[in-house]
């Protein structure tokens, strides 16, 4: 059975989603329990793969390969290396908590909502574990459909605008990815990602392909200046979709960079590393300031996501720069590791923060900061978690937010002290916008009579937030298991960047 684990993880949620559509929403609680059972089972199954992973093997494990037949050389090929496995963990962990966290907040056509979440889960796992470029693309694009419906059906007042913007933006990116992949297929005669990475390419080809990949993945991450869909989508999406989006979908962009762009076009990536570093710094500094002035809690978190994903791209391309300068490989390795840890950490923290905002929204039906005040007086447990996640988001040592940012800043210092200086700004800016939000929402006198009536967390909400808190603290205090898990693959990736293709 362990040979088919990835297929099980991919298709059981999809089939479960179809089952939910058939069951309909006549008994909502039964529906919620079914969904939670599937999601939890998937998480435990996924977790059980950890001891089976060979940590010294940088290549793909749990490999499945099934040729489609037919004249196009593509295959149903799955497999995970350390990086991909960590990302699938994020998917299953996140989906479980999303189901738990949005237990009672959705009542309208509940079965379709839960089905969308489940199908999303399957497609996202498929996306992270595909080792065939066309299969990756199918999952990459297929997951837009459930997300589009999630935002458009269960979203806020401007949901239609947000859903269309989300879909068209992302589709624009992915069609460029498709064209690049077809071009590569024509050269290599296969869609196998590993073979594509070995393909020699000229300078011109690499430049074109680099920008094709860049458009696709920078929209997904999102990077400045193509980030504008994210605040809209986040604000209008229902809590569950926001969490899915911030926690997992954005990571597919970062994952795409390390899976496609760096191995396939290393020379172009090195040539334009300066561009990527500048864009990342703009995201970190400028978008940080933008987050400061937002009045909607979800908008603050959306901009904070763009800023923190800036650390992922910064870490990746500082690493590229260091390798190509012939500098210290160990330092480059630290930068890449930092970027990967930052992906996980941002997944945990942003998921937790959006869940928190969702819990406030369930009680007050507003996300405006000014409608709150003194929440700590009526919801002490909630206050505890909220402060913890806010601190983690601003990079407090002892939380996962610190580890990734510290590693990235560390390695960028050897690239140039100026990069490190700007990157370190984040510590001040993110502390400013997070603490200011905490101050206005939690502290002080009780803002109004509605706040006074709010109830503290119930057991289910408490469980959800504790799970997030556990992940944030474990990864913060003892990041070794995560770093060790991805170490071999990251090392191989850094070596790959060093190989000149021209």
């Amino acid at each position, binding site marked *: 059975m362990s040979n088919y684990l990835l297929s099980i993880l991919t298709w059981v949620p999809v089939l479960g989603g179809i089952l939910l559509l058939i069951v309909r929403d006549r008994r909502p609680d039964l529906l919620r329990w079914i969904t939670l059972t599937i999601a939890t089972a998937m998480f435990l199954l996924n977790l059980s793969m950890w001891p089976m992973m060979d940590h010294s093997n940088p290549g793909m494990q749990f490999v499945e390969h099934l040729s*489609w*037949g*037919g004249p196009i050389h593509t295959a149903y090929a799955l497999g995970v290396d350390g990086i991909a496995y960590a990302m699938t963990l994020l998917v299953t962990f996140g989906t479980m908590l999303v189901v738990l966290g949005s237990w009672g907040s959705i009542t309208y056509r509940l079965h379709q909502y839960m089905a969308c979440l489940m199908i999303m889960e399957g497609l996202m796992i498929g996306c992270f574990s595909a080792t065939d470029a066309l299969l990756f*693309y*199918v999952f990459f694009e*297929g997951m837009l459909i459930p997300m*589009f419906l999630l935002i458009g059906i269960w979203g806020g007042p401007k949901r239609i605008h947000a*859903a269309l913007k989300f879909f068209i933006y992302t*589709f624009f990116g992915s*069609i460029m990815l498709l064209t690049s992949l077809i071009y590569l297929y024509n050269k290599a005669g296969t869609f196998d990602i590993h073979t594509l990475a070995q393909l020699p390419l000229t300078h011109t080809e690499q430049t074109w392909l680099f920008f094709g990949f860049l458009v696709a993945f920078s929209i997904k991450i999102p990077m400045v200046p193509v980030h504008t869909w994210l605040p809209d989508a986040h604000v209008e999406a229902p809590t569950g979709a926001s969490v899915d989006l911030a926690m997992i979908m954005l990571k597919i962009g970062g994952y795409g960079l390390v899976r496609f762009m760096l191995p396939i076009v290393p020379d172009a990536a090195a040539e334009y590393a300066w561009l990527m570093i500048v864009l990342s710094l703009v995201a970190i500094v400028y978008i940080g300031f933008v987050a400061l002035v937002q009045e909607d809690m979800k908008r603050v978190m959306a901009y904070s996501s763009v800023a923190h994903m800036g650390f992922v791209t910064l870490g990746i391309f500082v690493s590229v720069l260091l390798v190509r300068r012939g500098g210290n490989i160990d330092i480059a390795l630290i930068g890449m590791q930092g970027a990967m840890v930052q992906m996980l950490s941002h997944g945990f923290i942003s998921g937790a923060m959006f869940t928190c905002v969702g819990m406030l929204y369930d009680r007050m039906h507003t996300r405006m900061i000014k409608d709150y005040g003194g929440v700590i007086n009526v919801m002490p447990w909630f206050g505890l978690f909220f402060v913890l996640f806010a601190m983690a988001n601003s990079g407090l040592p002892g939380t996962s937010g610190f580890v990734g940012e510290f590693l990235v800043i560390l390695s960028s210092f050897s690239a140039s002290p100026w990069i490190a200086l700007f990157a370190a700004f984040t510590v001040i800016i993110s502390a400013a916008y997070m603490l200011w939000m905490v101050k206005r929402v939690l502290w002080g006198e009780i803002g109004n009579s509605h706040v006074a009536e709010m109830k503290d967390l119930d057991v289910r909400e408490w469980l959800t937030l504790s799970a997030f808190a556990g992940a944030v603290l474990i990864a913060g205090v003892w990041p070794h298991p995560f770093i060790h898990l991805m170490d071999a693959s990251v090392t191989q990736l850094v070596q790959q960047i060093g190989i000149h293709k021209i």
Partner: protein
Amino acid sequence: MPNLNDILILLPEFYLVAAACVLLLLDAFMQPAQRGLLHWLSVVVLLVAIYLVVAGQPDVPVTAFGGMFVRDRVAEILKVFALICTVFVFVYARPYLRDRNLYVGEFYTLTLFAVIGIMLLVSAGNLVMVYLGLELLTLSSYALVALNRDSPLSSEAAIKYFVLGALASGMLLYGMSMVYGATGSLDLAQLRAAGAHAAMPNLLQFGLIFMIIGIGFKLGAAPFHMWIPDVYEGAPTAVTIFIGSAPKLAAFGMAYRLLDSGMGELVHHWQIMLAALAVLSLAIGNLVAIVQTNLKRLLAYSTISHMGYLLLGLASANPQGYAAAMFYAISYALMGTAAFGVILALSRAGFECDNIDDLKGLNQKSPWLAFLMLLVIFSLAGVPPLFGFYAKLLVLEAAIHADMLWLALVGAVFAIIGLYYYLRVVKVMYFDKPELVGELSVQRDASLRLVLSLNVLSLLVLGVCWGPLLGWCQKAFLG
């Protein structure tokens, strides 16, 4: 001299002619109440025709009547899918026709004659046969569009279709006469051989241009697309669904026979013309579709853009490109029947369901039908894992393979623009509150519900297991 062997080669066509005549006679002696029998008989006739086409298929291409008729794999595949689409059309059309007093025998016999036209056209080995098949198809279509003779809109559409269609046929015939003048032959295989050293190459090229115009008109490629939106909107939906599906396969077959089999030596001339037609169709189809409020017109402009993608494959001018284009034509025919099938399923007496707003809140009224339409729309938009995605993938691949990267990029960019109007349909179905009242056809007719579900789910199945069909298409061209 025609012998028994020739007749055996044409057995499916002869059979269909005989069956259509029998049905016509039967209809004359039947009570209107027994029309259900005629309906199911027509479906059976088509199913038997599919069997005859597949079962009698020789392993190597054969010709009959002195090269007039070619029976090869290309013709087989196109015929099979044209017949399947027609079965879908008959099943979907019945409730609609019944509600509007159009449930008459002419619908079935005219459609069957149009199908015979398609079958002759895709098997043509001679310019005369191309023209005969085409005229049989289009003359039947003109009459079908005017089926609802009391409706001014239908009559207008029929007249427009007839005038423009006759003009295009004239152009095609004029081109053929010049080609004949330049080469002295009407046989496509001899044309190809004579093309390399024609006595008057300019005359041959001139004839080619006129033939391209005729092909462009039949495909509905811009700038020869003017008739498509009006005919799609004006014709009864039960006829639009036919015009929008099987004849597209025929138009592909005609383009392949004329351009590759006949004018293969002039590939450098027609390749660039087809590329220009493709770009124009992609641009006009996708841009104009954005502002449409009528669902049938929206699908009409969407057809134009899809013909642009099909031309991308044809313009590659190699066996893989033809296979990709044929794959695209098949996918479009199946998607077209499914999309119009949903419209037919939603219409009822006195209500056409031809505005996009008529779909409002369909997800609440009928989640299954909304889900089917969702699949069709995303397939049309080219989102994986649906059939339409692989069709797009293959034509883009064919264009890149033929060193026309720019053409593939144009196709990719217009796919994004096209997405916008497709998403609007999904938005209306899923995000808006319902306004639908009354009973839907789909709730009355079990066969419609079943076949429509099969039709749409085939898009999903072929989207996952597309290998065998593509292999079949490629084998047809690679031999």
